Each structure stands twice: as structure tokens, then as C-alpha cells.
């Protein structure tokens, strides 16, 4: 089994619709990541694909065949539950080997496979414990183990690494990726970790309130977000937004900040060149939102051409980088600059935007107006 297609899937819980008219095709062997704010319907979507929840409307196809009526145990999917759902009366080993047992795999083979999976997950000395006696992260690894040990047509993983430490998470990420390559099956993955989403996925589907906002490759999502929500959701710290409007000045399209009428003016030329709109003319009222990611904001102690002065509001060390929030023309703009950053609060700093990487959104509906093209450099 391979391609998973959702057609007009809707799910309501007693009147409250949590997934709305979802259309999504996950290609054969694709690694698709579902991201979105808490409660947006990711788990519900997975559960519907899995067959644990019946969609209120719409249909699900596996390889073109409708499966809406197929019970979960006939759908040939593996799943890691967000809540683990370990069998409390079975040992770790039995938990992991259960699916194999159900497939009547010989005992010796099961033992072998379980041991292999447990090694991968670094829980081989816990095999005889009951879930009750495990730490949170260990439980999560057992839950993951249950999925990776078996062959399935599709693998659904609901935040499988959320309770693991960074090191382990990197390892597990690699293992999951490897599994994906090895078994060459469809993976649908839910995560809140941007790095995971960006590094592992073939495509990312960004959901919001049960509606898919954009489904595209990680680069595309990051660099050409379809709307303001996607832009702000993907990327941490999130994109800076400045509201304003487009004006044609001397035949050149320019952005004017509502707060001060200022941003972009310092480098009129540059900005006006960039404003090439997708699909025509931009919003009728000209009201737009300009977005720029913190890493595309540069700071300088000394004035530079095109930089505007602001005041340091707060600086948060992130390890390799520092996240500096600057008060600029009455708006707060975050910049991510390399460590160390030693300017005190309220000291003056000069702020510059990377003109190649500005995003424009329709102010009324948040749709992207313009996709920045990125300068190619090594």
C-alpha cells in the first residue's frame, strides 16, 4: 500500500467541526509531516487515516481504493499514539512484539526483531519491565518501537519524539528517516519540532483549525509561505510583521508602514524593485503586511546604509545565537544574531532587513502576495 488520499474529509465531534473538508494526497513512499497549532486536528486526521475514527464526511483512499469502511486492523497501518497507549499488562518486549504476534510471526523471529528495535531505541535492558516502571521518555520509545518493529503499508507517527532529549531525538530522527528509506513506505508524521519537520519531510502540510493552509516542500513552506499564518507558524522565533500599505510612488511600488510611514523608505529603490506581485495587482485597498524573519534582520552598532536606528528591548541567549528584540518605530522587531551580543538594554542599535527575503501578505485575508527569491550563495 502506498498512496494515501483524503477527499473532502470532515470530522465533527458533537456539532463541533474539528477537521473541515480536508483534501490531501500523500504519495507513495512520501514522508509527509503534519504541523499546526495545538488542537488543530492533526491527531484526529491521523486517527481517521488509521481507521480509529470514522470521518463525518468525505472518503479516504489507499492506493485509489476506498477504505472508509475498513476497520483499523485491516488497514495495514502502524501508528505511534500521542498518548502512547501501551498495554499496561504486557512487558516492554511484549508491547513491541504484539503486532508481530498478531501477524503470526514465529516466536524466534519476534524476539529477534524486538531486540533489534529495542537496541535502536536504546531500551534493550528494559524489555522485561512493565510500562508502569518506565520514565516518560522510555514509554515514548516503547510506543515508537511498536511501530518501527513491524511492516506496514503506512506509518503514522503522532509526535513520537516529544518527550525525548535533544541528543536522543537527533538519533531517533535519523532512525526514523532510515526506516523510511529501508521500508520505502508512506510516512505521515506529526511534530511540533520545526527542525524535525524541516529535516525529515518530503512535504509539510500546515494545518489550522482543521484546514490545511499549505502543503509543500519544507523549503517552499519556509521561503514561500502561502499565507501569513504559515509564515508565522513555521519558524521560531516567528517572522516579524509590519502592517502598512502599498503605494505607487513615481511608478514604483513601495511599502509604507502604517505605524510610522517609515519602513522601507530608507531604501526606497530596493523595496520598490522587489514588489512584484503574484497574480496581478495586490489588494484593492493596498493594505498589506510585510514579513521578515528574525534571521533576516541584521543589527549593527554603527549606522549603515538602509539601516534604521532602534533601541534594544530585550536580548535572549539561545546558545549559538542571541534573540534580540528591538523597538523600532514603535513596533517590536526580533532579530537573531550570532552569540555573543553584549549591548545593554535600551542602547541604540541599527536595524537592517535583508531585502531579498521580505514577504508581503494581503492584510485582509493574509494570503501571500509575493514570494521572495533567494540569492544563491554557498
Amino acid at each position: 500500500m502506498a498512496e494515501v488520499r483524503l477527499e473532502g474529509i470532515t470530522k465533527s465531534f458533537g456539532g463541533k467541526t474539528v477537521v473541515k473538508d480536508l483534501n490531501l494526497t500523500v504519495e507513495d513512499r512520501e514522508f509527509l509531516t503534519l504541523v499546526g497549532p495545538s488542537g488543530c486536528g492533526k491527531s484526529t486526521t491521523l486517527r481517521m487515516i488509521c481507521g480509529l475514527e470514522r470521518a463525518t464526511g468525505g472518503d479516504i483512499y489507499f492506493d485509489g481504493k476506498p477504505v472508509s469502511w475498513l476497520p483499523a486492523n485491516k488497514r495495514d497501518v502502524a501508528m505511534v499514539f500521542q498518548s502512547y497507549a501501551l498495554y499496561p499488562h504486557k512487558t516492554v518486549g511484549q508491547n513491541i512484539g504484539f503486532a508481530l504476534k498478531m501477524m503470526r510471526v514465529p516466536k524466534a523471529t519476534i524476539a529477534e526483531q524486538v531486540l533489534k528495535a529495542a537496541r535502536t531505541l536504546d531500551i534493550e535492558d528494559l524489555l522485561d519491565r512493565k510500562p508502569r516502571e518506565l520514565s516518560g521518555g522510555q514509554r515514548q520509545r516503547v510506543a515508537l518501537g511498536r511501530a518501527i518493529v513491524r511492516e506496514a503499508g503506512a506509518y503514522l507517527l503522532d509526535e513520537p519524539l516529544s518527550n525525548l532529549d535533544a541528543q536522543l531525538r537527533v538519533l531517533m530522527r535519523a532512525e526514523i528517516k532510515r526506516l523510511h528509506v529501508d521500508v520505502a513506505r508512506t510516512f505521515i508524521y506529526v511534530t511540533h519540532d520545526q527542525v524535525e519537520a524541516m529535516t525529515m519531510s518530503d512535504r509539510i502540510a500546515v494545518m489550522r483549525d482543521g484546514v490545511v493552509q499549505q502543503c509543500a516542500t519544507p523549503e517552499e513552506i519556509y521561503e514561500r509561505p502561502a499565507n501569513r499564518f504559515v509564515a508565522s507558524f513555521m519558524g521560531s522565533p516567528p517572522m516579524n510583521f509590519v502592517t502598512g500599505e502599498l503605494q505607487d510612488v513615481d511608478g514604483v511600488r513601495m511599502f509604507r508602514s502604517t505605524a510610522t510611514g517609515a519602513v522601507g523608505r530608507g531604501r526606497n529603490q530596493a523595496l520598490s524593485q522587489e514588489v512584484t506581485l503574484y497574480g496581478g495587482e495586490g489588494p484593492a485597498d493596498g493594505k498589506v503586511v510585510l514579513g521578515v524573519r528574525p534571521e533576516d534582520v541584521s543589527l549593527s552598532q554603527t549606522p549603515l546604509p538602509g539601516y534604521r536606528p532602534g533601541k534594544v528591548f530585550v536580548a535572549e541567549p539561545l546558545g549559538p545565537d542571541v534573540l534580540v528584540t528591538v523597538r523600532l518605530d514603535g513596533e517590536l522587531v526580533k532579530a537573531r544574531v550570532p552569540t555573543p551580543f553584549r549591548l545593554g538594554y535600551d542602547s541604540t542599535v541599527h536595524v537592517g532587513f535583508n531585502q531579498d527575503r521580505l514577504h508581503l501578505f494581503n492584510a485582509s485575508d493574509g494570503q501571500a502576495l509575493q514570494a521572495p527569491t533567494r540569492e544563491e550563495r554557498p
Partner: protein
Amino acid sequence: MSVIEARRPWSDTAKAYALNAPAMIVIALLVAYPIVYSFWVSLQRNNLKRPRAKRFIGLENYRSLLTDDAFLSALRVSALFVLVVLGFTVVLALILALVLNERFRGRGLLLSLALLPWAMPGVVNGLMWRTIFDAKTGALNGLLSQLGLIDTYHAWLTSGTGAFFFTAMAQVWNTLPFSVIILLAGLSTIPSELYDAAKVDRAGAFQRFGQVALPWLLHPLLIVLILETMNAFRAFDTIYVLTGGGPGDATTTIALLDVQTVLTFTDFGLGSAYAWVITAITLLISIGYIGLLYRKGNFEV
């Protein structure tokens, strides 16, 4: 090394016994004496009809059981009765509990119905089945003949096997609810996500039952087995009203014999010995169940 300021809490063992104290006191106050007394009596020749012949005879009562035909026959009947009643009860109860654990229209109604036989005192149960099995006017005869399954009315309880079977069925009807409720309450504590997980692990309905529900149910099942065994061994009211132990001694269970010995023949010594044999047998069986199931079902969520 440290100054312990807060009162040192009790150890688990102390706490446990403190928690058990009320129950133990009530039980000790009320049944310890009767139990010891009855055991003591079982070591006596003690027939109320002959108070002057009363004396301590050690294990004589027990020894006499070995050659007591009435006892041996009753023991056989009881064993068979327990087997039949327990088998039917557990299987039916499991199925019914599983049905009730599903969501469907009318579940509440069915659940209430499932409680119904429980609310029926054994005496009333016996009476009810007596009117149903009645050879002249019984509803069973009426129903079967109206359905065309029988030509003439049958006297269901007049053959040995018939009486045994129908008595067992009446007993099953009466004791079913307890098992259903215990198993159902057990089933309802199983987190649904475990079923979800098992479904994803490709377990079919039967495997989900065997691999998820059953292990979870082992302890409730243990109670059901113990109590139903105990009940079947002591089944009295229903049988008494229905057949009185007949025809002949086809349904004379050990409990019936014991009640007769104690209350009708007023032979307390022998009757107590019967009772203690019943106790020993049910205890042995129970310990067998416990040995089989307790550990396997012992896990924490």
C-alpha cells in the same frame, strides 16, 4: 544525620493493617466465633434430638463421610452442578458483558434487564421457574406447544437428567447478573486507546478480546469464578423450591443435604462436617483459581 521534624509516616504494612482494621474487626466480631464454633461442633456427635448423647468424637464425623452414600452422591451431583452452572454462567456472562460494553441503541435497557434476575430472591426465583416448568400449566409447555415444538405437555422435572438440567438453568438465570456486572464494570475500565492500539496492531475482534480485554479481566474473572463456584456449591433456595432435591436424589446437592441434615435432622455435628467439607472444597478450588489467574492478572496501570 537529620532531624526528623514531621511525624514519620506509618510504614505501608502498618497503614495497610490500619485500613483493614475496620473490616477485620467487624468480621472477627461477627463470624469468627460462629466459624470456630461450627468447626468445634463438627468434631462432636451433636444431634439436638439427643442432647444427652452429645460428645467429642474427633474426626469421626469426617471419617463417616467416606462411607456415607447420601453424601457421596450429593457430592457428585454438586460437582456436576457447579461445572454446568459455572460453565454456562461464565460463558453467557462474558458474551453479555461484551455486548453491553458496546455502544448501541437500547443498551441501557438491556443493562437494566441484565440486572433483573439478580433482584430476584432465590426463593422467588425457584417459584417463578416452578410455574414456568410446571407440567400442567407451565409457560414453557405452553410456549413450546404453541410453537409446535411439542405435542403434549411434558413434566420437565420428573426425569433425573431433566430435573438436573432445568434446575441448573434456573440457577444460571439467577446468578448471571453478578458475573455480567462484574465483568462489565471490568471491561468499562479498559482504556479505549488500548483497543485502538490493538486494532492498529492488526488484532481482530477475537484477538483484541484475548490480548487486551482478557488479561485486564483476569481479576474480575477470578472473583466471578470464586463466587459462582461458591454459589453453585451452596445453591439451595432455587433447587429446594424447584425439585426439593428430586426426583430421587438427582438434584440433591451437598448444600441441600447439609441444610436437611442440620435443620431437618438437627444433626449439627454431621451437618457442620458437611459444611466444612464444602468449605474445604471451595477453598481448594478458589486457591486453584488464584494460583492460575492472580499473578497473571496482577499489573498496575
